[in-house]
């Protein structure tokens, strides 16, 4: 299957990523088994959202930024709302703050489960995939009951939220959180106690603290390398300074550390949601929004901690009813670039999980990854075969341990 004469091959991974906002094509330059260099091409998913945003009114932009990324469909409106509230200089009522935090944390939970499932899928642990996604369903049901949709929630507006969370919904949320805690225990044990997963993920895709600072990486990618940055703590917004929680970090910077950070963050999210539900019960019902009449001229920067890291929005207004310039920086934009550090020097079978560990791209490798011979252009592996290699590696370790 492999062209014997050639000593360097190119493996494109991509271009179609369903699970991140910036799909691109990764080309792994390989020599034998080892990845020597990595290059990327983007533009397959460029929708011109920043330009589109200039033609929408401030309220309409919420529905647009929600559709930047389906998984982060609260983080972008969250950052945009923070940004517009900074320009208009208003602060939403406490009830709205609690609801915002609840929605934001529920999103983090479902996103981390989604990631865990797919990472398991890559390692050949389809059971982890099926379990994690099964346990994710109650969160989506809760979303449907709170907001009316499983994925795009449309909960945010300038100065507050669109829908209140009351009576039965609070009770259901409490029950869901209680159940989820048990399931999280189970998954954490299953993943962190497994010797094969240890062997497969420890020391793989390692990023040092200097690397993540150089690439300006954010979120779990940075926290797993010992850089304790979290916008929720550093620049508090919504209800995050009204509840008690802590920033989870790890020091190793490898895939295992990233998994650990995400699993432990789930507990913090559950803790935050439970406290926010307590807070919600103390605030008067219905007090969920401030009327914001007009947006003055100015510039604003808003950030929010998405499941993958800091989302950053910059808006420039001129006193009219739509943005003059709207710059959006999603966390994957900076995290993806760290692949260059994480993958070079690894074997091809480790590259898949190293790419997946940053949490932007798994389905791409599943469906659209092809390996070409560098010289002759013959296809060597397709996506399934790449995943297959990753699984065989796990199988081999399983037998040797």
């Amino acid at each position, binding site marked *: 299957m492999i062209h014997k004469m050639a000593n360097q091959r190119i493996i494109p991974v991509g271009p179609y990523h369903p699970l991140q906002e910036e799909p691109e094509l990764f080309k792994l330059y390989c020599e034998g088994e080892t990845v020597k260099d990595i290059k990327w*091409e983007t*533009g397959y998913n460029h929708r011109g959202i*920043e330009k589109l945003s200039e033609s929408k009114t401030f309220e309409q932009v919420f529905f647009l930024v929600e559709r930047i990324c389906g998984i982060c469909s609260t983080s972008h409106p969250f950052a945009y709302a923070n940004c517009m509230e900074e320009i208009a200089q208003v602060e939403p009522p406490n009830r709205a703050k609690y609801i915002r935090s609840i929605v934001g944390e529920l999103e983090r939970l479902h996103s981390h489960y989604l990631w865990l499932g797919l990472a398991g899928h890559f390692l050949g642990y389809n059971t982890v995939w099926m379990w994690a996604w099964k346990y994710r369903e109650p969160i989506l049901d809760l979303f449907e009951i709170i907001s009316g949709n499983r994925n795009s929630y449309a909960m945010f507006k300038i100065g507050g939220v669109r829908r209140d969370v009351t009576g039965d919904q609070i009770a259901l949320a409490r029950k869901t959180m209680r159940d989820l805690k048990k399931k999280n225990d189970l998954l954490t044990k299953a993943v962190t106690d497994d010797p094969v997963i240890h062997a497969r993920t420890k020391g793989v895709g390692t990023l040092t603290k200097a690397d993540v600072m150089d690439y300006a990486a954010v979120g779990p990618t940075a926290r797993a390398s010992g850089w304790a940055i979290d916008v929720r703590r550093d620049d508090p917004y919504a209800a995050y300074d009204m509840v008690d929680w802590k920033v989870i970090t790890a020091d190793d910077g490898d895939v295992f550390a990233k998994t650990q950070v995400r699993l432990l963050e789930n507990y913090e999210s559950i803790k935050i949601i439970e406290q926010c539900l307590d807070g919600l019960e103390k605030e008067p019902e219905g007090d969920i929004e401030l009327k914001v009449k007009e947006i003055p001229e100015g510039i604003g920067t808003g950030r929010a901690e998405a499941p993958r890291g800091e989302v950053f929005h910059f808006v420039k207004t001129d006193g009219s009813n739509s943005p003059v*310039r709207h710059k959006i920086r999603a966390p994957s934009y900076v995290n993806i670039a760290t692949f260059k550090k994480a993958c070079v020097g690894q074997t091809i079978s480790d590259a898949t999980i190293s790419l997946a560990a940053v949490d932007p791209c798994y389905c791409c490798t599943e469906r659209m990854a092809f390996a070409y011979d560098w010289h002759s252009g013959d296809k060597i592996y397709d996506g399934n075969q790449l995943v297959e290699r990753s699984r065989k590696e796990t199988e081999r370790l399983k037998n040797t341990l």
Partner: protein
Amino acid sequence: MKKQTFLENMREQLPQGVIQTGQIRDNRFVIDIEPAALLTIAGYLYHTLKYRFIIASAFHTKKGFEIMYHFSDDAAGNIINLHVILPQDQPEIESLTHMLSGANWIEREMREILGITFRNHPEPEKLISDGNWAEGVYPYRKNFK
């Protein structure tokens, strides 16, 4: 009060090339700088003060091409915006990528959407426009139809 001292400190500490410093909100600062001084000032923020580079936003106005380099001071929760204005006819500025790998993509993106040239960029290939719009078309310019 603490924030005020922060600004004063900045004014004293910052290397040459600062035109003006200002505060727009409690923890949001704007520093207008000369384009020629970008490397030294960004280097000061990144190396000495250990600020994190977030992203750069470019936009086209009557004054020319404006770029905001956003830096985050995570210990204090501040955002520091370095603001440069580049001339209409020849927008050109030094690339930050050699100092900060994180600036690689955004500089390529700004080149494609607005036609700003980044001198000494190590990898000046197309990032998003290939196949989407032609070379020499800059969709985020004001005169784009």
